[in-house]
């Protein structure tokens, strides 16, 4: 018996969500009186996983898995789960995590609950809280199967240091690769992605046109933030679809979300509601977004945003 966690890496480096997932797995393991085994695929040095509570690391090095392949990755994780006799398997809510999770679940004949926000309220029966109705409610759900798969929501549990010495060993199961081949990848490597960002700066129709996006980009750059946009902005082609956040776009669960010139339609709010702190800048005091915000400035974005960028630059210089 153990808790298995898949620690996601990119180009040999663990993502922050991997640290968060290992921390969460450690929380469950403590409740169950067992230990955490992490499984990694083509990651570099795995010793850091011990800092978050992993006692054992199964390292898979496999050239056939050099680009993400949901079927192959899911098979690898399922092999590791069987190898460890894992009762709980922890995955993340990244695009890749959500892609492979249902395959892992069927492979292990395990019940699967995604978007989990807290430690289980009990482990027998195994009952977890997760967000449903696109962040408008939570469900407390019991998983009845012998093996359980949970997908941890981003930025919900947090990274918790828990120094454990992790023994690593190489693990080389025979992997059943899928028949889905990556032909090309189109990814901006110089920008913070919405998925990874701690801070997201988002612009709406109030910015009047794509030529004004320098305002958003300057502010984002000052904060080391990702840029995003509302649905009308992506529908009009001002910004690429990959920046659209909201119910039919990307979900955002950042620490800070700054919305500029976005009125706050219910579909938009649904997508960003799990962000911790929301700031709204809008010239319309009646904009519904103010009701969902923590802090707001009623004012013209073209005046307020450059001032905010300047102020933050000064603040960063002072606190550097």
């Amino acid at each position, binding site marked *: 018996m153990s808790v298995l966690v898949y620690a996601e890496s990119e180009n040999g480096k663990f993502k922050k969500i991997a640290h968060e997932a290992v921390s969460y797995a450690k929380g469950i393991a403590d409740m169950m009186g067992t230990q955490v085994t992490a499984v990694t695929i083509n990651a570099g040095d795995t010793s850091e996983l011990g800092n978050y509570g992993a006692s054992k690391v199964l390292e898979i090095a496999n050239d056939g898995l050099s680009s993400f392949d949901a079927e192959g990755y899911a098979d690898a994780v399922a092999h590791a789960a069987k190898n460890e006799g894992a009762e709980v398997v922890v995955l993340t809510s990244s695009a890749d995590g959500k892609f492979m999770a*249902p395959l892992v679940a069927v492979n292990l004949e395990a019940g699967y609950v995604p978007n989990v926000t807290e430690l289980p309220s009990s482990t027998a029966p195994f009952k977890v809280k997760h967000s*449903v*109705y696109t962040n408008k409610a939570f469900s407390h759900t019991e998983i009845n199967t012998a093996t359980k798969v949970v997908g941890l929501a981003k930025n919900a549990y947090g990274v918790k240091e828990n120094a454990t010495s992790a023994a690593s060993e190489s693990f080389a199961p025979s992997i059943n690769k899928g028949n889905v081949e990556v032909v090309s990848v189109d990814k901006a490597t110089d920008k913070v992605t919405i998925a990874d960002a701690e801070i997201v700066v988002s612009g709406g129709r109030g910015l009047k046109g794509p030529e004004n996006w320098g305002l958003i980009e300057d502010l984002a750059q000052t904060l080391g933030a990702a840029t995003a946009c509302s649905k009308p902005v992506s529908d009009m082609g001002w910004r690429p679809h990959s920046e659209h956040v909201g119910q039919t776009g990307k979900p955002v669960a950042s620490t800070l979300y700054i919305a500029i010139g976005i009125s706050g339609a219910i579909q938009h709010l649904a997508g960003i509601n799990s962000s911790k*702190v929301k700031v709204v800048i809008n010239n319309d005091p009646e904009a519904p977004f103010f009701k969902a915000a923590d802090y707001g400035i009623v004012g013209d974005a073209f005046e307020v945003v450059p001032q905010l960028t300047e102020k933050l630059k000064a*603040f960063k210089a002072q606190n550097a």
Partner: protein
Amino acid sequence: MKILVCISHVPDTTSKINFTDGDTKFDTNGVQFVINPNDEFGLTRAMWFKEKQGASVHVANVGGPETEPTLRKALAIGADEAIRVNTVATDGYSVAKQLANVVKEGGYDLVIGGRESIDYNGGMVPGMIAKLTGANFVNTCIGLEVDGSTATAVREIDGGKETLKTELPLVIGGQKGLVEESDLRIPNMRGIMQARSKPLHVKEPIDAAAETQTASFEKPAPKGAVKLVDNVDELVNLLHNEAKVI
């Protein structure tokens, strides 16, 4: 090409979310149900395959008789036949098992589901159908072309997109981008009239126990009022000292 589009019957986006029976059941009182938005993008893409490549398009869902208007709407948009698996949809895994059975019996080449439903946000049904039927699977699919038995799919990834090549049979978890919002169709009167006479098969469920079950629901704690500030100095101060996010 035989296409099955899986349709989830969900509360309209703007619905108020409330629960009854001691917070154990969703309160359907006054709620308008619609085709799940992610499924609607997929259905519209299926119409393109029907019109350009002569595909036949069936739609299916798992649910009681109350879900039939949603299936009729899909027929009015242009699907040829509908299948309703007559059981209450409880968890994603059992729904996937029911639909996998429909897929096996119908011999579909392409199964289109949505990235997630906007009610349970499970995001698991398409992937599970693929695994249960031995089909290839692409999630968060924002573009799809089929040429013979070869499919080219575009997948949204964190920070960009990737192009994938695979073979039929294929299952996708689709979303906006498969078609644009402006391509979505509102059923016209002719479509609605035709939909009345199109086949809607009611199929009895196979034995598939739920692997998970909802014990109770909870609504988020009400949010405190927004703090309005007059100037950026104060905002930066609050974000640093009070919210501690910068």
